[in-house]
């Protein structure tokens, strides 16, 4: 009996000490994005809300959310998404890889706030996380051309 208890205790100790790799989703935590306006046909300006442990992480999430919305849709406002439903379904692995690679998605988006926070756009949530609203510009024209060149989406140009 004693050895059995010792075995259970050892098992518990080992399981407690074993490291579990935390699953980090490549997708934005927040997908609350509002389209503000079209920028000279080259991109869209969005108000994107991000969620994170601090301001920097929340801003990071907001930038990702804006690119996500530009590609996949789902935001509010009049901006058109780059990918349609079929393209989204057929390229799930590409989308996951794309948003897993910071250098990949971040080249199409920039914050217009230059490190500042607009009034009333930083909220601490009940779980302690920060929700941050950032005005960003997504270079949708450039993003579309890249996706077309990689064969992810079909060209909109009339041949």
């Amino acid at each position: 009996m004693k050895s059995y208890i010792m075995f259970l205790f050892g098992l518990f100790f080992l399981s407690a000490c074993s490291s579990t790799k935390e699953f980090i989703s490549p997708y934005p935590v927040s997908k609350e994005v509002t389209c503000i306006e079209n920028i000279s046909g080259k991109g869209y300006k969005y108000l994107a809300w991000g969620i994170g442990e601090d301001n920097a992480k929340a801003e990071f999430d907001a930038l990702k959310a804006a690119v996500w919305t530009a590609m996949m849709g789902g935001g509010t406002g009049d901006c058109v998404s780059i990918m349609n439903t079929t393209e989204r379904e057929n390229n799930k692995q590409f989308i996951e890889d794309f948003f897993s690679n910071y250098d990949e998605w971040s080249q199409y988006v920039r914050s217009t706030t230059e490190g500042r926070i607009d009034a009333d756009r930083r909220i601490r949530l009940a779980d302690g996380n920060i929700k941050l609203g950032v005005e960003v510009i997504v270079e949708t024209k450039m993003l579309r051309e890249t996706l077309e060149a990689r064969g992810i989406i079909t060209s909109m140009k009339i041949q």
Partner: protein
Amino acid sequence: MKNLYLLLLFVLAFSILSFSQQSDTKVESGVFTRKSITIVPVSTGNVSNYSQDMIAASYDIPYSPRYDYNTVDQSHLEEMQRLFNGITLDYKNLNSMENCEKLREALVQSGVFQQVIASMGNIDSLNARFQRNQKRIITSASSQMKIEAPTIEQMKTLMNGCFIGIPILESVTPNSDNYIAEGDLIWIRLDVSNVKNWDLTTHLPDYNEIECSIVKTEHGKVVVSPKSDKTSSLSTLFDDEPVNEYTLKIDSRSARQFTRSILKLALTMDEFKLRGTVQDVTDGIRIDLGKREDVYVDQGYKVYELRMDENNNKKSVYTGFMRIDKVGDNVTNEDALSSGYPILGHFEQGFIAKSHDQSFDLVVTPTYRLVSIPASSGLVSSDINSSPGVTVSALYNTSKLTNMTQLFIGVYYGMGFLSASSTTDPYSGTVTTTTVTTQEYGITIVKKFWMNNLNFLIGIESGLHGIEINFSDGNDYQIKGAFGIGGYAGIQIPFSADLLIGLQAGYVYVSTPTEIDLNGTAIPYPGFDGINLDGINLGGLTFGLNVSYSLPAF
């Protein structure tokens, strides 16, 4: 003395309680919208002869870059006065809808209303005000195309920031050498939110659809002194009366000062408080307000964090208090920030800052001083070597004048309560009980330094000292003519935006008193055998508590 400590304990408990109650408040916005103001002075029939003085004062108000001004022609203001004589307000319920409607009707009929709307709604004026309202250079399609015009919603917001201040003068009465002007102050806000008809050519809203509401009322009173040489007096520093009015009759001056007091009421109104966002906390605290909004050195800001609970309800939580030490010049550089230093609490980027203007600091200092009043003086039965007491000071923060943080100048009055003893009245020769108090008054200069939420202060003081001895046989002696000069240092801890409590110690040198009054009449000294002032020393080391409370702006 025990009662004094109880009072201090009560103040401490009250301040801690009030700070904790401030933790959960309504939602405070960090969005600053420029306000435009118009002063429309009127007077009741009995003092209508001051109408021209009031109108003149409305054109000669201390301008602040914080506001835009919608100026109204004199003829319209005169017509408003004429129409005002025909209406009767309910002064007991000054902010009633009936009063609001009556004033609105008079404003419309006099043409004041239309002129205000034309002034604030003019597209060029709106564009200029919009530019002044911007916090940073906006990157957008319109800015790329070099079009920086407000949207319809932004125009409406600016128009809703239009306020009309109506000082109603009701009496001007002499009082001793002074004159007192009294009446009511009313602030009306215009609201274009529900306007449906806009003129297609002028882009102005149909004024019949503009809604009005009374946002603040107060009974106002100003006291004006007859000094004609005010230019040379210290009071010039503290009032905003133009120098060119000093030669006017005192009653006219009081009517004019009453008109200007409407702006002091504005300082207390939540609608007029400056609002901004904390943008940096790495090198001081930086907020996106500056010279354009009339931010000044040592202006206080209450800081809030916007929070959301599980039910998505927003609330603002009061997290700290800061003061400005360097005003950013956002007139020449739109992105310039003002920097501040923390007083209380903690700060993070994105917190909301709301101005909290203060005026004088009232300081109560219970003290213990080592003095020397020997029995050989003939005033007391045994040697007195210490004096518990209390000093009250009123300190004025000179930052607006000197641009230096936390430099105060003020006046003080102190009393020391010495242990009562029985002794022989030097005049009557009878043995009686006595009450002995020391008194001092003078001026003081204090400089405070803030470090890590602690306030270190050093000060100098200079004044006159004396002793008052009341014998129970009815004879009262005043020992006077002692001049004192000294210094002190201390440390204070903030308990709220307005309350500081700490300790201080100092030394004051006081010369030997030279004069004696008996029952208000000077008696010769030396030459009065019963009293010897030589051994009296009212100076010495001083220790004490320091309780400082900042009064709100007025």
